[in-house]
């Protein structure tokens, strides 16, 4: 969901005060990035520039950390976040074909959000319910024992 200007201003102020607290702590970068991710749902170029300025760390380093750890996102998350498990059991049971079908239906890659902001796909490893393999989770709804043909109907519910 897009943030209003007031929300952005308020969240930026909250991030600024958090940075002020953390500034002189060794290894402050990742906690600050986590805070920003939590506040905005993703790390924008502008957010990374702000962190860079305040912590005197180059944007390239922040970008490096953001693209290394799966928990950070560079794009806003959609209203519905889709995770297709690609852990070992799901993979063996054909998760790749399910994931490909989701990408095809939505026209986006993993880590991206549809232009209308409705869906995003997130990289996911084992969700811990291997008995249901292959598994897909949308928000908090779990769909198991999937075939690629099931995908269109499931997406239509959202």
């Amino acid at each position, binding site marked *: 969901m897009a943030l209003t200007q007031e929300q952005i201003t308020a969240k930026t102020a909250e991030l600024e005060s958090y940075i002020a607290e953390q500034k002189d702590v060794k290894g402050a970068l990742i906690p600050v990035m986590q805070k920003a991710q939590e506040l905005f749902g993703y790390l924008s*170029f502008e957010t*990374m520039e702000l962190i860079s300025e305040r912590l005197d*760390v*180059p944007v*390239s*380093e922040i*970008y*490096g950390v953001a693209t290394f750890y799966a928990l950070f996102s560079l794009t806003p998350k959609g209203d519905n976040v889709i995770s297709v498990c690609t852990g070992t059991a799901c993979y063996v049971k054909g998760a790749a074909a399910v994931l490909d079908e989701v990408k095809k239906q939505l026209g986006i890659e993993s880590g991206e959000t549809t232009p209308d902001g409705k869906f995003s796909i997130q990289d996911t490893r084992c969700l811990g319910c291997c008995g249901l393999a292959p598994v897909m989770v949308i928000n908090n709804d779990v769909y198991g024992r999937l075939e690629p043909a099931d995908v269109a109907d499931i997406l239509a519910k959202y």
Partner: protein
Amino acid sequence: MNKVNLTIDGVQVEVPANYTILEAAREANINIPTLCYLKDVNEIGACRLCLVEIQGARALQASCVSPVSEGMVVCTNNEKLRKARKINLELILSNHNRECTSCVRSGNCELQQLCKEYGVEGYPYDGNKSEAKIDELSPSIVRDNTKCISCRRCVAACNKVQKIGAIGVAKRGFNTNIGCIYDMSLADSPCINCGQCILACPVGALHEKDSTDDVYAALSDPNKHVVVQPAPAVRATLGEEFGMEIGTSVTGKLVTALRRLGFDKVFDTDFAADLTIMEEGTELLGRLKNGGALPMITSCSPGWIKYCESFYPEFIPNLSSCKSPHEMLGALVKSYYAEKAGIDPKDIYVVSVMPCTAKKFEAGREELGNEGLQDVDAVLTVRELARMIKNAGIDFKRLPDSDFDSILGESTGAGVIFGATGGVMEAALRTVYEVVTGKTLESVEFHCVRGTDGIKEAEIDLDGTKVAVAVAHGTGNAKELLDMVKRGEKNYQFIEVMGCPGGCVTGGGTPIVDATTLSYIDLKAERAKALYNEDAGKAKRKSHENEEVKALYAEYLGEPNSHKAHELLHTHYVARPKYIKK
């Protein structure tokens, strides 16, 4: 420092306790192979080429990051190690564009050399290659990631040494990509074009944007009058490309080679260095007298200028308005010289041979021109010139010496030392002292501003008036110095900054020296020696004694900082965002 004793390949060595095994082995005359290691710049144990076997240790250890300890027994060369290193090389090759014959680094590629030494024959691990692209949009630097081996030496040079951070490591595992954020081009990043990344790269993933084709085209155009000028540091470094010892000055051979390549006139950027001192010295005295922005900061280095514009725009008023020397010379070639020689400036093509990749960017700045003509038309690095000389079949080492052409070819020792950190400051002090005091210097050498310390400071007594000066080289050191000035901890009247560590002699356009050689020598100091020796051997060592400079003022410019001098020799700067967002 406490010492420890250890045995490496049966050789007993005693070394300081803070040494790594790699450093200790060198004391025992053993070179352990390295690839990601670059002394004082990148010591991260990533490439696993420097593996050694330590008695009692569980697994093979990377010697570049393993500290020595008392009684340690190390083996650097056995069947197991040779095999491990060879497999590592084969794995690196499996994701490397191996078009060696067309690679600019063929012959001085550290990966190629190691493969030869380890007898790598085939490619047993060939499979998918990671997605990699070539970025050719920067006017100075080309990044070809199909050849990148992710050693991170360039990232350390950019981030740790230069404190710029234009490039970094993105993503992970097989998708790891060295480059700018969001896959943007270097041209849109905070890159200052210094080219220190090129010097750091062990392979062909980074090189200068080649301008030799443009220069060849001009040389073969009968309607073009092609003028060339080499910077001070070119004469101190070009010989290395022809197997000559580091620190050998090749001025006379350089001039002969340029003439044989077909340039119509061979002028000297050193002349313009002397001229810079007249203009910049006068500007400094003017600022001291009239309350201008102080400290005044030198403006010869285009890498430093872009750094200042992007990272410290608040210091723009402090920058000297002088164009950099080769730009001054270009402007004079197309005005003063053109008039005297009766040539239409439109038919003149000015080529600068520079130890610098940032000069390529600088030459394209629109304010550095006059009436629609750029002051300088093409910039070649020392490496590009060496390729042209080899291409022309010129036997460089055996060439006779010759002299630069008049009327823009004379130089003093002050102009020569511009190529080393502290050189511009020393040259300025020689002239400013004599102009202010009216006295003749007993010794022209200001050793206080020489040497390779990151930041140098001195106080000069000009007949009772004390002038505080500072010198920083490399933007990392410049950052430290400017921050101290900003916080009010330091107060200077005059600062010299050169964008590259060591100054121009170790600029991004100079010959590339391999990491092993760099472990043994101080390249900055060795190359600077060539310039200081040339200065010491000159009859004239002060810029204001240059006869051709005097003639230029008498016949054309009037006096330093005159209206005409301002028009031709001075410029302005703009605050730039770090990133150009599209």
